């Protein structure tokens, strides 16, 4: 790493230390400060499943251009404990500057932050001011102690900058200063609110609890009923009950918690209940690696729940998509009266970066609920399979739903012909949803030879890798709606000489789905399943060699 290099492309800074040393807090604050100063920032964290001890690391990328993915490269490493260096050895190169934060320092994290700002020659005004605001509630003494530590660090940073001849001169931008800085969790929660979510019953589970917490935060302002249920089974059944009564509910969980909801998913299927399910994937099976990342539950979402019934699966890859697809999940669950999934993972949920402000026009949420007439039939047969949805207590009709196969009234039946009709009715809704699909995003040269395929969280890593590898024969197709797969996609796939699926799992689940749906073979899978996300730089090498 030379200072020259950094000047235009930015730096990657890693803080590593034990849980409890405040790495989370400080890296978030640092990131916000850089953003406020006009730099593009991307913060990716990686940590262990414990409250104290162990080793965690957070990467802050600071750049002139947009940055929104993880890279392996470390330019500056701040090691808050000595073990951190060994722990990160694979990512450390000769170019990496390592700063060991003296064990004598009380506020190690603040000290390191000071060093960084000193090194990167950012005037200490904004950092100090934001630090002060951030610590406001902690009292004058803590603030002063921290500011003091910060200044010491800052001085040290300036010194080092001289000593190591670090000259960083990344351009700042006025525009960035006023952009939003958030993580996937926040973006999804905002999308839920925008989609009219007003009910959440969930059970804590990493990495999905955040969405619950964000919705609880929003609950006072947006009239959201919130309940931490006794278990996942209860939460899913509550949410379905809530939709039945006219609310718009979501459950947020991870694969293991979702397993317990699959029976109720099947219930939503047969009673044609709208439902929104957020699965924050993590490496399984079972408890697996609870705080790490993986895209291992696509097939689970596709086939969970016994019996056959339609569903929609969205997999956002960027903050904008987190917001848009969470919103779409509510709208389409309501519209098609079926469960809609949001598949995310730790990488997507806990990575923060800046994006242009999303503006919402004043709009009323259109609920597809009718006032019922006396002779209302919940499952009235119609041409497109959709029956007008009533709710109890609104109109003169009765709203009956039943987990058994049922007649148009919603009462149980064992009539074989009616059974077949009801299956067709439910299936038609999927045809309808398919006609209104959210298309995959095409990125790259339209005259591609090799088409990279990806879904969900891997998006930004793949896009950056594509940019870095600078090959003209490559393009990338990113699936946001993973199911049903839009049939238009087929053309794009058959046009390629070579199809390469890039997935953060073992089996290549998107590749398998494409075979299942289109009978098109995927030539190569680039898979990663060590609990860490794709890094743009490493991936660039891999696709460079295709």
């Amino acid at each position, binding site marked *: 790493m030379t200072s020259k290099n950094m000047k235009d492309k930015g730096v990657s800074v890693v803080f590593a230390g034990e849980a409890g040393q405040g790495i989370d807090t400080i890296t978030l604050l640092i990131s916000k400060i850089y953003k406020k100063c006009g730099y593009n920032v991307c913060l990716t964290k990686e940590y262990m499943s414990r409250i104290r001890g162990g080793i965690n690391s957070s990467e802050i990328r600071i750049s002139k251009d947009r940055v929104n993915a993880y890279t392996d490269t470390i330019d500056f490493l701040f090691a808050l404990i000595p073990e951190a260096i060994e722990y990160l050895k694979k990512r450390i190169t000769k170019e990496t500057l390592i700063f060991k934060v003296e064990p004598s320092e009380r506020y190690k994290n603040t000290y390191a932050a000071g060093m960084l700002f000193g090194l990167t020659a950012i005037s200490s005004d904004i950092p100090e001011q934001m630090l002060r605001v951030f610590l406001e509630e902690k009292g004058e003494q803590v603030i002063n102690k921290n500011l003091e530590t910060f200044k010491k660090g800052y001085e040290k940073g300036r010194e080092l900058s001289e000593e190591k001849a670090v000259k960083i001169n990344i351009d700042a931008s006025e525009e960035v200063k006023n952009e939003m800085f958030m993580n996937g969790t926040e973006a999804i929660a905002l999308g839920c609110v925008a989609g009219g979510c007003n009910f959440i019953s969930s059970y804590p589970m990493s990495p999905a609890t955040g969405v619950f917490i964000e919705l609880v935060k929003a609950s006072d302002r947006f009239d959201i009923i919130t309940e931490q249920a006794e278990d996942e089974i209860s939460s899913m059944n509550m949410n379905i009950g809530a939709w*039945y009564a006219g609310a718009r509910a979501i459950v947020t969980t991870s694969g293991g918690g979702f397993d317990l909801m699959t029976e109720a998913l099947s219930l939503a299927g047969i009673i044609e209940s709208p439902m929104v399910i957020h699965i924050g994937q993590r490496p399984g099976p079972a408890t697996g690696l609870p705080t790490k990342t993986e895209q291992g539950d696509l097939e689970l979402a596709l086939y969970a729940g016994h019996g056959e019934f339609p569903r929609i699966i969205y997999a956002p890859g960027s903050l904008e998509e987190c917001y848009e697809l969470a919103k779409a999940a509510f709208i389409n669950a309501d519209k098609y009266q079926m469960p809609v999934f949001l598949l995310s993972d730790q990488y997507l949920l806990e990575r923060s970066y800046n994006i242009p402000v999303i503006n919402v026009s004043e709009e009323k949420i259109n609920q597809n609920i009718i006032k019922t007439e006396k002779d209302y039939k919940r499952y009235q047969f119609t041409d497109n399979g959709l029956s007008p949805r009533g709710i109890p207590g609104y109109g003169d009709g009765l709203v009956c739903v039943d987990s058994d196969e049922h007649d148009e009234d919603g009462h149980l039946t064992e009539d074989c012909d009616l059974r077949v009709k009801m299956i067709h009715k439910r299936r038609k809704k999927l045809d309808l949803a398919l006609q209104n699909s959210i298309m995959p995003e095409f990125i790259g040269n339209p005259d591609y030879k090799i088409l990279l395929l990806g879904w969900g969280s891997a998006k930004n890593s793949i896009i950056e890798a594509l940019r870095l590898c600078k090959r003209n024969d490559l393009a990338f197709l990113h699936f946001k709606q993973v199911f049903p797969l839009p049939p238009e996609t087929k053309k794009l796939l058959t046009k390629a000489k070579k199809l390469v699926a890039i997935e953060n799992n073992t089996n290549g689940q998107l590749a398998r789905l494409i075979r299942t749906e289109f009978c098109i073979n995927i030539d190569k899978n680039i898979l990663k399943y060590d609990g860490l996300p794709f890094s743009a730089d490493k991936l660039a090498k891999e696709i460079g060699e295709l």
Partner: protein
Amino acid sequence: MDAKIFDMPCADIAWCPGCGNFLILKSLKDALTELDIKPENLVMVSGVGSASKTPHYIRANVFDGLHGRILPPACAIKAVNPELTVVAVGGDGDMYGEGGNHLIHAIRRNSNITNIVHNNMLYCLTRKQASPSSSYGLITPVQTHGVTEEPFNPVAIAISAGATFVARAFCTDTEKTKEIIKKAILHKGYSLVDVLMPCVTFEVNSYKWFKENSYYLEQTDKVFSREEAFKKAIEIEKLPLGIFYIQEGKATFEENQTAYKDNKTPLVFREISRGKMINDLLHSYT
């Protein structure tokens, strides 16, 4: 109000002739009639089992969900629209077996719903297996040497879990059962009415057996304390019938929701128009 308002003349009732379920259905309909509840404002929630077919035989809104998962949707429905009367009915398998965890936690939540359990001490729809409330020694195709596990005592458990209304009824005494159900529906908070019933087909407990092995608690003005109620609850020589315990005034699940702190309009009838507020929220991330 005419009791017929709750009748479903076309329903093909799946219960065996002479089954206690018919009596509970009658008591329930009578109670609803006397309380002047409108079918359109009533939601009957149930699970799977013979008992859980009850909602299909009452003119009402119906949420007939999964085996054992009766209470979570019932609590949610009430929270989304507190103006609805929510009655959750199920069998002893539903409520005490598969649904045991929800029972305890719904009690803790104290939603203002009424929970009626058709307790035949048996899984009947799956053709005779022991339920948690089966008596010691009951012989079935699965318990070929007789039940050995401690019978589940719903009254005692409900009292320990902090239920605010706990009663036991006996299906044959339709008048008394009706009165208990009425009180349960009127009670603010979660109420459990465990209704003993025989199964005439699989011949588990007869009407006569219950008659001889139960007695009504004297319902004086004084209500039992939790300890006294518990003491009554663990009597098994003769099963006490009636209301064991009432705690008035405890806040319900709905009431505890911020959404209802200053605004009593049911959530479902509030307009969801969020554009401006969301814009503000989004901008708070800059």
